[in-house]
């Protein structure tokens, strides 16, 4: 058990198109991780497909870099479609 690997679990729901992160499980290998994820995260009819990824293989952004990475996006309203006024003749898009 102490040598088990931590896996991140992604579930695709019945009506969803993409897999969503739902949590993590411990397992000896990927096949067991799928089974364990099935037991933990799909027992109430949540999904139709599972992905597992060893947690160690995920590269995450650093919390220290939050400001340089994400703050500059805050004042750039022109990156949103709603910033632009549509000419009346276009009608409803």
């Amino acid at each position, binding site marked *: 058990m102490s040598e088990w690997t931590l896996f991140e679990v992604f579930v695709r729901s019945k009506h969803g198109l993409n897999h969503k992160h739902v949590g993590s499980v411990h397992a000896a290998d990927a096949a067991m991780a799928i089974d364990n994820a099935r*037991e933990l995260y799909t027992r109430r009819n949540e999904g139709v497909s599972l992905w597992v990824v060893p947690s160690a293989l995920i590269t995450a952004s650093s919390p220290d870099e939050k400001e340089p990475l994400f703050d500059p996006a805050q004042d750039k309203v022109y990156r949103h479609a709603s910033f632009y006024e549509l000419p009346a003749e276009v009608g409803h898009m």
Partner: protein
Amino acid sequence: MNPNHDLIEYLLRLGDSALIQGQRLCEWCGRAPALEEELALMNVGLDLVGQARNWLDYAAELLADGRDADHLAFRRDERAYRNLLLVEQPNGDFAVTMAKQFLYDAWHFQVLDGLSRSGDARVAGIAAKALKEVTYHLRRSGEWVQRLGDGTEESHRRMQAAIPQLWRFTVEMSDGDEVEQRLCEAGIAPDPAQIAGAWQAKVAEVFAAATLPLPEPAVNFYLSGRRGLHSEHLGLLLAEMQFLQRAYPDATW
């Protein structure tokens, strides 16, 4: 004699085996080696208790003597229980539990697969639903037998030690009696000889992959679950499982 005598006997065998195996699995609650494993054991156990309810409901309807499924489960004595001897055996360590689960699942899968084509529509329906669950149970327990058998020195030693503790009870997987024979001829239950052959082949395949030696086929001895002649372990299990309904009959909450 009830005209459905054979079918009732058979339904009790299926229901009792599922119920006792489920009860044994739930004894792991709070004691499993990992959180993930605990949930898996409970899920499988509750699948089996749910299947037991379906079989016992049907048995109670055919018995038509005023008893319902709860009554059959909680107020029948050991001698009236028809479960396989294998499933009443104590859990032991995790290797014994998984070996027991696998030996049962491999048999259970074949039986349900046959029953899903039963001439009795109710039986076929219950079996088809249960088969989906048991397909997964068998995959899981088979993988554990392989992981432990073909794992570390310690896990191999434990899995190898688990087999002889259970093996003699597997005689019941390969010797159908006259009830099963008659139900087979009536198109209700699968051929016991076919079940036995398929069970042996599956066990041989998984044991080979798990680097476990396959013992000689088990032989008949004086106990028989389907005749109500159980090992001493069933009485203790029932004492715990039936306590509430025995002490407070018809209690509800």
